[in-house]
């Protein structure tokens, strides 16, 4: 990415049926999924049969009955993938119906003009003039834009690679005050595993994420970079 993001993270979210109490720090340590300084730095928010949430030095793990989420907010982000894959290698029978890999960045631009260039290119103000302009002055602009890759296959949304699901790219002005004239980009790479002939489970999802992670992050950063190119004009 041509502009180093100032806030950056990624997450993997799985939807299914979970027993949150399994994902305790001691279980993760016992399975050598979280060890060393990562384990030492765990801060527990809650351990409850319906929800477990604790912070790692680099991110956050949240599990409730139907959702598992691991977020990395500190580099290297691949730790989220490693933790996710290893967890579900140990829990291969967990029913999981969908998994998504998310990449989010806030990156700065030099000034309002650069930032507005992105919005004006993606949603030309000419078309919305009577909405976003008043008396010749700017009175609004792009608030949020989501682009999605999906085809219809067997009555469901499917991706170009043939898997069910979609890829969404969302762009917004950043509301993070520490990122000057910031732009926020969020890529959601979603796999819908419902309705497949084989019941989808932890084993399948672990393999899927392990196989797709690098390409997903690379593609996501490619789209981010494309937005950055709009901003920088280079």
């Amino acid at each position: 990415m041509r502009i180093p993001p100032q806030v950056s993270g990624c997450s993997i979210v799985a939807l299914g049926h979970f027993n949150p109490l399994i994902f305790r720090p001691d279980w993760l340590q016992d399975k050598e999924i979280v060890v060393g300084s990562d384990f030492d730095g765990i801060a527990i928010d809650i351990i409850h049969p319906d929800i477990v949430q604790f912070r790692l030095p680099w991110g956050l793990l949240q599990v409730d009955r139907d959702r598992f989420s691991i977020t990395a907010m500190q580099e290297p982000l691949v730790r989220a993938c490693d933790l996710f894959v290893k967890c579900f290698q140990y829990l291969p029978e967990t029913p999981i119906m969908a998994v998504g890999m998310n990449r989010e960045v806030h990156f700065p631009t030099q000034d309002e003009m650069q930032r507005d260039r992105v919005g004006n290119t993606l949603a030309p103000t000419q078309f919305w003039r009577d909405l976003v302009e008043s008396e010749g002055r700017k009175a609004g602009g792009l608030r949020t834009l989501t682009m999605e890759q999906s085809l219809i296959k067997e009555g469901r949304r499917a991706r170009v690679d043939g898997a069910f699901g979609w890829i969404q790219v969302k762009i917004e002005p950043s509301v993070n005050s520490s990122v000057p004239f910031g732009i926020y980009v969020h890529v959601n790479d979603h796999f819908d595993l419902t309705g497949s002939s084989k019941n989808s489970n932890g084993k399948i999802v672990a393999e899927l994420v392990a196989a797709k992670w690098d390409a997903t992050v690379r593609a996501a950063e490619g789209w981010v970079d494309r937005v950055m190119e709009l901003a920088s004009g280079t």
Partner: protein
Amino acid sequence: MSSFLELAAAGPPQVDQVEISVFGPNFGECVVVHLGNGHWIVIDSCIYEPTKEPVALAYLRALALDPAESIKAVIATHWHDDHCKGLGSIISAAPGAHIWIASALTDREFLRFSARMNKNTTAVAGTKLSEFDQIIESILTRRNAGLLTYGFVTARMSIYRVDASVSGHGHSCEILALSPSHGDELNFRERIARDSPQRRQTKRSVPSPEPNDISIATMVSIGPTSAILGADLENAGSTAGWQAVISSHAYSPLVPRACLYKLPHHGSENAHNVEVWQQLLTPEPLAVLTPWRKGRGRLPSSSGIRLIATQTPTCYITASDARTQKVKRRPPGVSLSLRENRSIRLRSLEAPFGAVRFRSVDLTNGTWKHELFGDACDVRKLRRIKQVR
């Protein structure tokens, strides 16, 4: 060595001229042999960084030779990507060349080891086995096409022969494998069984192949003279390594004695065998080696050089041990961070590159002309270095 133009300036060898050229290092080494009359043999491979192509192909093309027609045999003495980059490309460029690999690499256990290692696609770092995969695929393609232009090597197997009537110089030629012996293969199988990934084990990359138990050392005989190309063969007890070669020689002499010796395993002390010098080589033969580096370690070591010097006054090395000065351009913040912490030493793996070429002058007397290219030099000019192993 800015290009192969320097090497090619003298043109290809004469029809009746034998040539042995040693290239390296750069993730491996490469030996290119001309037996006469356009019979070229390639042993191992490394990459010429400026063009990113295998050295053997770059060299032959610089000599205006077509690799597809010139290369008659390709011998792979390594299975680890670190040591044979580009071998797959050479085989593709020379589909008519006979492929030779160690027999132990076709064991079911090693094939399983390789296939299991290939399942580790998570980590980017770490060596792969992509060259070995390519070689096996090439062999399978040929087998399926009914082309038996491949072979699996064990000690004392004849790899390639040129009859005197077609050699160009009137002498018959033969490349004979000196290893791997039965003892080498047993050692190899034991190590692979130990290192093979198991269920529920955390993934890791391909372990170091050292020592290279299934290294193929060869003897290149050309009529009344010969050369020994030591590959990576080391001393490994009485039934393996160089001792197995000497034992075999006692029963069935390896003749004629070699007047040219490509030192095994980068001139390491572990590969130095006095009996090899005394029984298989002429007194004070021409010697050549390629350097090796791993971390701060370098081969040949100062003691290794001293041992070589006790056996021959004439030894060349394809590259000095000078570290490459090439540093990648990085953002100032990165460079500053690296400089501020003096304990951090970052180095390029790219090594200075060179070649030593021997061309026969008189095969009957065993006289050769040598030429040094690129960073190649006399081994005595190396700075003294510490041995790692």
